[in-house]
């Protein structure tokens, strides 16, 4: 099963650390990620740039509008995500709870949805439309 782990962190928290602390944190996290990868638990890793770089798109008055910054202005912001390959939800919880990055913030674990049936149905609908 694949699980997405969304890592949230308070902006500035990492920047507020000393260089030595930052290096230690990087080393610990990368070492743990290496272990996850070596055991086949990492399907993808996606670190993100700071929230200032974000652009949010939304629908307004019948067209797309944009604003600077993240969608939700919360204390902790999405900092990166990891797609885990785990046996079940408790396995995913166990793998993430041992991650050194846990010390920096909050992690949300969500199972990946299987849309294959819905997609197949949609394809059937679309085929019917074109045959008309």
């Amino acid at each position: 099963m694949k699980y997405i782990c969304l890592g949230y962190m308070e902006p500035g928290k990492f920047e507020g650390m000393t260089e030595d602390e930052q290096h230690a944190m990087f080393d610990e996290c990368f070492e743990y990620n290496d272990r996850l990868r070596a055991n086949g638990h990492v399907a993808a890793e996606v670190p993100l740039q700071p929230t200032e770089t974000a652009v949010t798109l939304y629908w307004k008055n019948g067209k797309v509008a944009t604003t600077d910054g993240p969608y939700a202005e919360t204390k902790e912001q999405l900092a990166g995500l990891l797609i885990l390959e785990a046996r079940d939800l408790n396995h995913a919880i166990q793998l993430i709870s041992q991650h050194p990055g846990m010390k920096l913030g909050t992690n949300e674990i969500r199972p990946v949805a299987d849309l294959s049936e819905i997609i197949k149905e949609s394809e059937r609908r679309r085929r019917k439309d074109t045959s008309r």
Partner: protein
Amino acid sequence: MDDLLEPDWLISTARFKAIDAMRRRARFDGAQRDLVAHMESRANDASGKDEDEETGDEEIEDDRLRLIFTCGHPALPAEGQVALTLREICGLTTEEIARAFLVTPATLAQRIVRAKAKIRETPIPYEVPTPQELPERLAAVLRVIYLVFNEGYSAAAGAEVTRAELTGEAIRLGRLLTELRPEPEVIGLLSLMLLQESRHAARTSPTGELILLVNQDRSLWNREQIAEGVALLEKALKSRRFGSYTLQAAIAAVHAEAESVARTDWRQIVALYNQLVRIQPSPVVQLNRAVAIAMRDGPEVGLTHIDAVLEHGELPNIYLAHSARADMYRRLGRTAEARSSYEKALALTQQEPERQFLQERIRQLK
């Protein structure tokens, strides 16, 4: 996961060998072994690494027993015991267990996380109980297995298929424990589960309605399971150290061997309930005894016994008493009283198959 499982083994020997090798290494390292980490690595190690090292069978069996006793430790909450047992011993995933228990995976995952935290904090020793502790600890483990079985057996509507897996898992656990620790009550519980499961095909109609024992088509009963259950029962009875599971199995066996309701040996069933009431004087057992007495001596006598249970006991499923009472009135031809008792029962249960059954009975009385 399933490809790891040989038909009659819950966990492949190879995996146990790997775990034992790991444990020896841990000992060699002089590191303090963390039980939870040990359990996790075992549950998550789906690759089942095969080790060449020879490991004594005894050590493998010890490891299984330790795991069973740890998951069913009385210090853990009951739901945690069940969830841990199914995940760590049966190898079910969090999602599968959640589906069977009709809760979200997130809820079930937290039960497991909490149970593991409790094992860490208490701390619960990873060992086979001493002979002094064994009866109590074994009783706790048997309760977990029977809980799993009953959860599957009293299937809620709409989820029958996944819940049927639970009865299968419980029987497999019963077999494993019988193999590892063939105590009379362990054998008795396995016998009881097999005898109850033997009626599976006859218990519900094609449209999902519940069919009572007395109305079941006995040709649908699984003869193989009955034969195995009866053979186990005889073994447990011979020990003369049996308890409530064996007695319940004995009652189930009397039914299993009867051609029809009329030809059932109700005297023997009442005698067995008399014994069962002595060691397990719960209102549920007393109600069942009252119904058996009614079968032996007639509904009038049955009614007085049921009323006595209603007066004294706090019945968890009180609708059962009203339903039984209604049945006595029905057999006595006292239609109005029968109907009002069925209605009382109907108002007291939410279980859909039960409700359908009661509604059908009320319809028949109109």
